[in-house]
């Protein structure tokens, strides 16, 4: 088990009583097996018809893209941040190039490339799922932002913490996973949530590759003659839903900060 990912999971999912036990892992596994909604979405079980991902839409699509995006971008961002501070020049160079590349291009370009350009380079007949391509694009794009947020946290950890961990005989991954990352991530919770909120709202851009998220559905409904004249209500409703989710994330992050507060920064 990688202590690094363990620590980050611990920070975001487990209560502190789970620390240093395998119970923390068990609870994470438990949570991730609650994927019943996946079967509801995809269908093809219990006599439900199979639903192609290209026909997914609405709020569920928004949630799928943002949750998968966050879940993938977070650990990847941590690895990139660690890589950018690595002593090994090759790893550092790779991470810097990756981060600077993905941070430098607009998300629309990423989505457009993934859905229009990428198939041109792939061999004939090899054509993987549009949603999956968009998900990978979003995840890589957000990972670059996440990496810089996490790096900010890493830089705020005093040298003494590294030295104390090293002096106890902890190796690199244990030092990072048990000592440095838990503190660094806690420091940058506001920045992480900021990135998550931005990601959540950015998912609306998938409309340009023909995926209909919440806003996209409303947009297309507004052009439907049967719903003529209700566009304002639709957009206001979408705004409300987005605001609710973002506000919930913001409140959650505040609660998390309070819960993880151990009193050392307040003196």
């Amino acid at each position, binding site marked *: 088990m990688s*202590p690094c990912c363990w620590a980050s999971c611990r920070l975001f999912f487990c209560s502190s009583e789970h*620390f*240093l*036990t395998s119970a923390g892992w068990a609870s994470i596994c438990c949570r991730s097996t609650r994927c019943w909604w996946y079967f509801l979405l995809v269908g093809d079980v219990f006599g439900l018809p199979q639903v192609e991902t290209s026909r997914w839409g609405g709020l569920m699509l928004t949630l799928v893209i943002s949750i998968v995006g966050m879940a993938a971008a977070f650990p990847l961002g941590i690895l990139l941040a660690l890589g950018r501070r690595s002593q090994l020049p090759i790893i550092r160079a790779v991470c810097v190039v990756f981060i600077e590349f993905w941070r430098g291009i607009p998300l629309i370009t990423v989505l457009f490339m993934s859905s229009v350009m990428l198939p041109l380079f792939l061999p004939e007949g090899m054509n993987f799922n549009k949603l999956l391509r968009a998900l990978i694009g979003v995840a890589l794009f957000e990972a670059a932002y996440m990496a810089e947020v996490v790096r900010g946290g890493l830089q705020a950890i*005093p040298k*003494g*913490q590294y*030295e*104390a*961990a*090293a*002096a*106890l*005989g*902890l*190796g690199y991954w*244990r030092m990072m996973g*048990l*000592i440095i990352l*838990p*503190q660094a991530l*806690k420091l940058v919770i506001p920045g992480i949530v900021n990135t998550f909120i931005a990601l959540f709202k950015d998912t609306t851009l998938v409309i340009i590759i023909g995926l209909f998220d919440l806003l996209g559905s409303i947009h297309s409904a507004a052009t439907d003659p049967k719903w003529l004249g209700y566009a304002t209500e639709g957009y206001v409703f979408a705004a409300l839903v987005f605001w609710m989710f973002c506000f919930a994330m913001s409140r959650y992050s505040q609660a998390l900060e309070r819960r*993880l507060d*151990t*009193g*050392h*920064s*307040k*003196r």
Partner: protein
Amino acid sequence: MPATPTSLSPEAVTESIDSMLKATTTPPSPPASRLTVSAQVMIQMIDVNKWYGQFHVLKDINLTVRKGERIVICGPSGSGKSTLIRCINRLEEHQRGRIIVDGTELTNNLKHIEHVRREIGMVFQHFNLFPHLKVLDNCMLAPIWVRKLPRAQAEEMAMHYLKRVKIPEQAQKYPGQLSGGQQQRVAIARSLCMNPRIMLFDEPTSALDPEMIKEVLDTMVGLAEEGMTMLCVTHEMGFARTVANRVIFMDGGEIMEENEPTEFFNNPRSERTKLFLSQILHH
């Protein structure tokens, strides 16, 4: 040739802990002065040189520390005391010469470095406790993740050492909720939980208020009385007089003088030592 580090088997660790726990119930050990120093060499530094860029911090350091020896290192600020003891557990890298700790030479071999660090406890000026973990978890972390002790045993050992430094009641608090003296005692307990064979102290009382210095020094004296091999950078001359076998005076990256405490304080050989002693003893 560097000896291959022998990783301790869990049984061996368990045994050593058991014997240690028993040892505390046996009659108190004799006072420090009567303890004999064994012939076994724990640390050997041969012609060690270190540079920070162009700056020559350590110049031809030769030092041999035997098992059970208690060495106090003093000298003016910037003379390289911290650098010297940090080289011993490779928090700093030396560029020339050899450092051999308990049979293992410090080279770029990460395995050897981690092996040596497991056997050396270090106490820092600014405690460097892990602020996100409770006192108990601070102490249990390394035994669990480095020594691979079962949780229950690590907890037992942590509580044992927290009792030794006289703060078992603080086990469930976070470091940020303790006073400086208490934090430094936790830091000592945290190091002891790894059953180190050598303890390094880098000005452990310099960041403390005067009324807290005594509690930390008492803990260190207790440790010395049990025969721990210790290297202390400190300006607590009372501690040096009563506890040290040898006092080392450093200046400008060199060991200027090395003597037993009474001789060192009563008949300092070099002018530089006399000046330094007069500065710290008369204020």
